[in-house]
């Protein structure tokens, strides 16, 4: 027993030492010796990539923003190069947004998205975005308005900050999922530097198997969000005779498959409040106007997507119970282009604002 106690006494300091060493402090770099980029931009010139990083530098008195750029063969080579020349350690753990320049998306994102997913430090819930113009003006704009400490772009997408229902939110893992998926494509929000605001939303890019094949505008992005199940509350619909605000939405879908003809019945229930009327429309007229506007917008969007064989609404998901796995492989090419959708909008005018409608 004494021996046992002796051993315990010997083991305890050893353990204590090991715990000290392992409390996460191995090769620790303090926070003031790290550069924590918030936004990463990726562009392609010829065979080479160029990476821009937006790094906020906080000192006691003020907040500065540093923009670093470097070019090289692969993104990781560039990051390594930047790390080499930086006086502090580059730490991508808090990267919030990755912006691809439009040509990169058109060439194909698969390679870079895969390397982001593989990396240990880039979180897979980082937002993806596409820049409509070149990246430099956008970064200059972001850097110049240093009030938010470089977080404007993140806040722009963040649901509890500046996000609005016509802005698409897409994270890296969603893009990665769509690359191999049989039945689901993805839209990545596109942005450009705003005229008076820092950023302006220009809709979204349609990504099929990691490659940009088209684009949708902001109004269509709203429908995309609707199908994705992200609330559209707060969106304002402007029509000829009235302007309404969406207060609640509910979408129910059912699918049928008869002789290789896929059909979707979609019923959208909207609750709106009236903000403005032009002339003297009745409730019924307002409802009808909303229905027509949304249905026609939806039809154009779907037709464009079907022509590109890009299933951004994830309609294929609703046929997973009707098709086998082998058939699902051909969903995009065989069933989706000829898919019919019956889109019905049922509008409830919850209230008419502070004024009565005739």
């Amino acid at each position, binding site marked *: 027993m004494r*021996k*046992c106690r002796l*051993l*315990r006494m010997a*083991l*305890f300091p*050893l*353990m204590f030492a*090991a*715990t000290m*060493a*392992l409390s*996460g402090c*191995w*090769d620790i770099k303090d926070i003031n010796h790290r550069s924590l980029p918030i936004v990463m931009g990726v562009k392609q010139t010829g065979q080479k990539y160029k990476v821009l990083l937006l790094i906020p530098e906080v000192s006691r008195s003020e907040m500065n923003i540093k923009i670093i750029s470097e070019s090289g063969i692969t993104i990781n080579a560039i990051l390594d190069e930047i790390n080499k020349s930086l006086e502090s350690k580059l730490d991508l753990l*808090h990267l919030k947004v990755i912006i691809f320049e439009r040509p990169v998306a058109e060439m194909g994102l698969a390679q870079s998205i895969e390397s982001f997913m593989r990396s*240990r*430090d880039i*979180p*897979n*819930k980082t937002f993806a975005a596409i820049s409509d113009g070149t990246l430099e003006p956008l970064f200059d704009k972001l850097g110049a308005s240093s009030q938010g400490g470089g977080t404007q772009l993140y806040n722009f997408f*963040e*649901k*509890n900050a500046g996000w609005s229902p016509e802005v698409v939110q897409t*994270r890296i*893992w969603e893009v*990665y*999922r769509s*690359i*191999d*998926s*049989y039945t*689901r494509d993805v839209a990545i929000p596109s942005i450009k530097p705003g005229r008076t605001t820092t950023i302006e939303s220009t809709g979204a890019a349609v990504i099929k198997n990691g490659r940009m094949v088209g684009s949708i505008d902001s109004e269509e992005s709203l429908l995309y969000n609707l199908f994705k199940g992200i609330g559209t509350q707060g969106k304002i619909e402007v029509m000829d005779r009235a302007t309404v605000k969406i207060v609640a939405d509910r979408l129910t879908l059912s699918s049928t498959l008869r002789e290789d003809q896929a059909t979707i019945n979609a019923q959208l229930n909207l609750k709106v409040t009236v903000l403005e009327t032009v002339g003297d429309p009745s409730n019924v007229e307002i409802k009808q106007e909303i229905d027509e506007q949304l249905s026609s917008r939806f039809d154009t969007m779907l037709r464009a997507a079907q022509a590109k064989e890009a299933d951004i609404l*994830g309609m294929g*998901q*609703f046929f*997973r*119970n009707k*098709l*086998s*796995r082998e058939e*699902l492989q051909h969903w995009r090419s065989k069933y989706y282009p000829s898919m019919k959708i019956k889109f019905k909008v049922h509008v409830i005018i919850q209230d008419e604002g502070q004024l009565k409608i005739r």
Partner: protein
Amino acid sequence: MDRSIQVIAMCLITNLGLIFFLYPADIIASLSTGHWSAVLLGFVIHIGMVSVYIKGLSKCAPKNVIDLFQSAGNVFAFLMLLPLAVYFVMMLIITVRAYAEIVTMVFLAQTPLWTIMLLFLALSTLVSLWGIESLFRTSMLIALLFFPFLIIVVILSFQNVDWHYMLPFVDRKTATFSYVFHRPFLQSLFAFVGGFLFLGFIPPYVPYQSRKIIMASLLLLPFFLISVYVPLLTFGENTASKFPFPFIMAVDTVDISWLMFDRITIFFMISLLCFVVLFLSLVMWMTLQLLKRSMHFFNAPIASVLLAATVFIVCLLVPSWSNVEQMIWWNTYLRLYAAFVIPLVTFALGVSRRRKEVIRP
């Protein structure tokens, strides 16, 4: 005194520690649709073997497995239990090495492997030295501390699921069970076998009621299903099959803006690592019991330090993750032996002993 609660806690802890890392990848690799069938099959095997094992033990209570096997002859016991001891040692090596690798992959990217392995081994050696009663008391403490975190993370992990990925529900491979004798499924049994053999070693030190244990084992089924289905429903089969640790990936996608911590994965990892350390100490204690019985010159502290040192050295010799996977595969025969032969022999011995006692009371 009935210590069923402690045994139940230990049972849950050891299994949970093993479920969430390697198991989902194996199940996802073994099938392309209808993963529920593989999970359920594994689970039925698990429950079946646990019941057989416990039944056999209860026939000859309060003896433990070693006593029981020795009552049938020393040579017999030695031959039967030797593979089990080898299996335990292999399991120690694999678990320590694999989990150290997982830790560096998920959050301690800078830390060298040997320190993590040393920490695991030092902690578990210490806990196992304190004896089985304190081991079980620790299990209660750890369960109380970490179950809430675990449950919260498991609930939150459903944030990004799309239930349509559940379908197609069945295909030919699922219906015919043709996946059973292939490598991924056999490897997935790793998660089941590790967690129940201790039930035979703890009597008479820690008494328990067999019925309660089997009921509690049923609680594990949702966790087995969740560990496989959350990544599948989040990513879809095509993408989920690309990850070495699908569940961790799925938890990584969870985004909660009101939580001040960015990654809930860390909570999850820390709680599971505590479970794993406890599991390691339990396995270490069992191995020592086996060693002590067969070779009397071993006394506890020296033997356990020697065992830990051996495991540590072997772990250092394993260079890469693919070697770890290879070792898990090599261990399959021993695992099948531990999963099927030991419970069945226990049952047979238990029944025959009972009969003898009935004949000459």
